[in-house]
């Protein structure tokens, strides 16, 4: 198994010096500034393409009808599948999850699934017999640090954008309609949680940064991932090892995280509205017309 490439001793020393003595980052960002976040939706429903600087993530939501779990007959099934392929970085191998991959899928699970962002009860079709199984596949296309935040944003965006086929129940017969017969319906969505990751540097973790890139991630001494929604409801805080961080610093981190999450939330709402406008052909009459789209001008 190839080992992950490491930055050289010179680079590590220089990065620490720049962060601690001069208070500058190598790419000229502020300490609490994200790299440019971009989101595009695919032609299909439920495809979200997120890029955070050079980190690129594609999330695809899909749904199929299955049998619910025996112990939860009234709930649908919701899974998040993360896979880090060698495309992201050569040290990732297929079918052999690294620590990064396990932590990433665990964090996404905790943030999106366990916080009840998706209303799984609305996925139930026939109690104990049939339900929707919603699955989100997260593909990391390029790895330049801060996978967690980008992946979480992609998952939430994909699920909010996704439409599942409409169904009806008549005389005990379940009908699933194709998109041509009935417009697909959005998922029952309760709130949008986002992850914000802080990285700490220095002997006692006195320097804190948001959105560390790959090099900064290699040098950091601790990291804290905070998941919360725009109302300031914290879903989870993960601090997996590393040097201890003071409680006051953590409080400050959380309040900055809230402002960031509000920005994410607004950005996602804007993008969703934009996409809906693009798809909206202008009501029923417009859909019935036989004219082709013409380029004006």
């Amino acid at each position: 198994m190839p080992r992950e490439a490491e930055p050289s001793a010179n680079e590590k020393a220089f990065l620490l010096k720049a962060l601690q003595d001069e208070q500058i980052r190598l790419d000229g960002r502020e300490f609490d500034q994200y790299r440019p976040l971009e989101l595009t939706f695919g032609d299909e429903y439920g495809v979200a393409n997120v890029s955070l600087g050079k980190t690129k993530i594609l999330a695809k939501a899909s749904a199929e009808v299955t049998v619910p779990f025996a112990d939860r007959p009234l709930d649908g099934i919701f899974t998040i599948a993360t896979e880090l392929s060698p495309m992201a970085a050569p040290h990732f191998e297929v079918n052999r999850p690294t620590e990064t991959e396990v932590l990433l899928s665990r964090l996404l699970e905790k943030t999106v699934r366990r916080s009840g962002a998706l209303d799984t009860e609305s996925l139930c079709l026939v109690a104990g017999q049939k339900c929707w199984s919603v699955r989100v596949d997260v593909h990391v296309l390029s790895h330049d640090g801060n996978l967690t935040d980008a992946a979480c944003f992609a998952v939430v965006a994909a699920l909010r954008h996704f439409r599942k086929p409409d169904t009806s129940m008549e005389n005990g017969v379940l009908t699933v309609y194709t998109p041509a017969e009935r417009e697909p319906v959005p998922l029952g969505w309760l709130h949008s949680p986002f992850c914000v990751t802080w990285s700490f540097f220095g002997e006692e973790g006195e320097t804190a940064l948001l959105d560390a890139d790959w090099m900064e991630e290699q040098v950091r001494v601790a990291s804290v991932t905070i998941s919360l929604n725009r109302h300031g409801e914290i879903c989870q805080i993960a601090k997996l090892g590393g040097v201890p961080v003071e409680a006051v610093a953590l409080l400050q981190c959380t309040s900055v995280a809230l402002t960031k999450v509000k920005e994410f939330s607004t950005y996602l709402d804007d993008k969703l509205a934009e996409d809906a406008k693009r798809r909206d052909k202008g009501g029923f009459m417009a859909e019935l017309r036989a004219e082709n789209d013409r380029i004006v001008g």
Partner: protein
Amino acid sequence: MSSESPLVVLPGETIDPSLIPTHKKNPLRLGPGLRHIPPSEIVPTVAGQLVVDHRKTSMWIEYNGGRYIPSQGDLIIGQIARSATDFYYVSLSPYTPNATLPHLAFESATKKTRPQLASGELVYARVSLANRHMDPELECVNSSTGKADGLGPLKDGMVFDVSLGFARRLLMAKSREEGKVEVLEALGEEGLAFETAVGRNGKVWVGSESVKTAVMVGRALRETDEKGLGVEAQRKLVKKLVREMR
């Protein structure tokens, strides 16, 4: 370079026979990106700019991309991976086989005075041997004169990754006229004090007393490379960066 306007070729394209340089005595030499299919066909294997040198009866394709492939005489910046009994293993680019650098291939090095390098430290070295299917060999000393010629361990400073094409442009003898790179000169004119070492493997080492200067140089280089800036835009970028950082 003889062609006035750059000629772009695609893989598998036929090359106009009139472009192929001929010489009475010297054989034709093919550089990277071209493949000779016997008896007499020359086919590009990558997309890029076809460069023909009539004086040296050689031709090659200039392209920007891919992984660094060592070739003899290249100056590179390597990272020490580990030390063996009489040589260091040096990584030229991540996830590729290491090159070897003999312990005694430094200026006036003996068994007792050789530099002790730990893993992770950087060296500026020349590729002394690069055969296909063999690990490349490096040296930090000119073997005929015994002088270092500026090669050796790199202390402090910062390394910035650039594309291979940009590294080649920076290393050109006339990088300003032919390579269209003026960013380093422009930074120097602003009164910044720094030194650089460019490695053909797409790495630029920047050393400076001030951290700010090194960061500024690195950002200027990276941005010039990524955005493919022209000479004018490079000067503008330098002005902007200097204003920002002061």
